[in-house]
């Protein structure tokens, strides 16, 4: 351990602002890029599911409509 | 092959001179931008001489970005570009001759006006000579490499600023070497090295850009 105490570690020999600013901003940037990628992934899959569900609903509605018009035709 | 190349050369030259206003505008832009610098920074001759080479080169790059858009635009939208590409002739050669016409039409007026620009910015004779040499070697590079990006963006509706954003980073090394050459001339130092590097970049562009432009046009035609 190069530093005598936690205070010394945080002070970084007087360069605290520059060292912690650098590490801090870099950490934030890397975090942001990985979180963005993961959340986009979830969003894309959710959109795909919703789209699928929507298509299924449309298909079911069409089918129901087709059956209905069929029964109307045979009925009358 | 030669008939087509000659034909395109004559056609483009004729079209360029027919639309004289479209030719004159980038030149006027160049002159006006250069005029802005003494007005904005102050007319002190020493300062002007220091920033002169950079100002002229930056103005040249910006005005060539404006002028470049017309390189393929009209031919793309009226379908003649598609005809060239379907003709079975080498698209790279066609691209090369169009770039040549574009360069002649934009560089020669610049060369004609350069003594005036040198006067405005208080350049010495040595600096002027170095400037002309960098312009002769560097402006074809601008046209060749610029044409690649123009080819890629010709089909886009909102081309405009995107073209500049793509090309300015690529032109920065040229700008650095060209202004370094003129600055060295100002100090009576040799500048053969800078010219050699610009020349090397030009050689590379002459060898590869026509094929890249041809590919870019193919991508745009889809």
């Amino acid at each position, binding site marked *: 351990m190069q530093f005598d105490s936690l205070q010394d570690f945080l002070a970084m020999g007087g360069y605290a602002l520059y060292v912690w600013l650098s590490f801090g901003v870099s950490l934030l940037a890397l975090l942001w*890029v990985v979180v963005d990628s993961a959340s986009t*992934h979830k969003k894309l899959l959710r959109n795909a599911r919703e789209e699928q569900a929507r298509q299924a609903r449309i298909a079911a509605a069409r089918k129901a409509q087709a059956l209905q018009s069929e029964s109307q035709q045979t009925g009358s | 092959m030669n008939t087509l190349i000659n034909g395109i050369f004559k056609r483009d030259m004729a079209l360029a001179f027919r639309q004289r206003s479209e030719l004159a505008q980038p030149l006027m832009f160049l002159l006006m931008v250069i005029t802005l610098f003494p007005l904005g920074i102050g007319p002190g001759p020493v300062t002007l001489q220091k920033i002169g080479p950079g100002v002229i080169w930056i103005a040249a790059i910006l005005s060539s970005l404006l002028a470049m858009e017309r390189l393929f635009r009209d031919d793309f939208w009226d379908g003649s570009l598609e005809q060239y590409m379907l003709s079975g002739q080498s698209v790279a050669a066609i691209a090369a001759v169009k770039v040549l016409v574009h360069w002649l039409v934009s560089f020669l007026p610049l060369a004609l006006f350069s003594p005036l620009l040198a006067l405005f910015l208080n350049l010495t004779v040595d600096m002027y000579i170095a400037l002309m040499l960098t312009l002769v070697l560097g402006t074809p590079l601008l046209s060749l490499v610029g044409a690649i990006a123009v080819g890629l963006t010709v089909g886009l509706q909102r081309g405009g600023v995107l073209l500049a954003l793509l090309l300015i980073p690529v032109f920065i090394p040229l700008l650095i070497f060209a202004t370094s050459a003129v600055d060295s001339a100002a100090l009576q130092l040799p500048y053969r090295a800078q010219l050699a590097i610009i020349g090397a970049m030009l050689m590379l562009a002459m060898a590869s850009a026509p094929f890249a432009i041809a590919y870019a046009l193919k991508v745009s035609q889809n």
Partner: protein
Amino acid sequence: MWKWLHPYAKPERAYQLCVTLQPYFLWPGILCLIAGSIWGLAFAPQDYQQGDSFRIIYIHVPSAILSMSTYVAMAVAALVGIVWQWRTAFMAMIAMAPVGAVVTFIALFTGAAWGKPMWGTWWVWDARLTSELILLFLYLGVIALYGAFEDKQQAGKAAGVMALVGVVNVPIIHYSVEWWNTLHQGATISKFDKPSIAPEMLWPLLIALLGLALFIAAVTVMRMKNEIIRREYHRPWVKDLAARALGDDHAV
């Protein structure tokens, strides 16, 4: 020789490969980054000239090196896409672009934060810093051009051409320190010479470098998965994937 790569021209196979590789890149990468940072911050010795401010080297140098290698990797992907017409190559290219841009930003920012105590100024227009800034612009240009096209296959080819044009800039950055006499110090690590840095300082640097490289690979793989899903939205395998992920927090 490259036959083993051929299956990955298909987006579905490429997606499976990304899924397999992701944990092997992400967790060792994060581990190495943390280990390298802690070692560099707390255990490596001070520099006799710069004191503790030199510890910024443990993020600045890895990010500067990797910003350039990511661009080269992006250009290689572009070349593969253009020459062999692989869609997955263009997807890899556009996956790498934002990550590379962020790493370039980190290199610039940490360089500026290091420059202030070292040279007394936040920014100076020397060759190395300037070229890194240009590299950032090149990344942003590739991203912007890709976004300007509706047809993403066309977009990939166009952005690929610009990536290749820009890759000529990368050697200029690398050799600029030799060509111009500038403020920025010479290369710390070189293939041929002994590194001009003490071993106790070198090891955390190499670990941080490895960690960041793995991290970049992990995020690239994640973003490539996203791009594949976007482009292959209507395929049955994507539909199955989405259905399987229902209610699952750790969506694959």
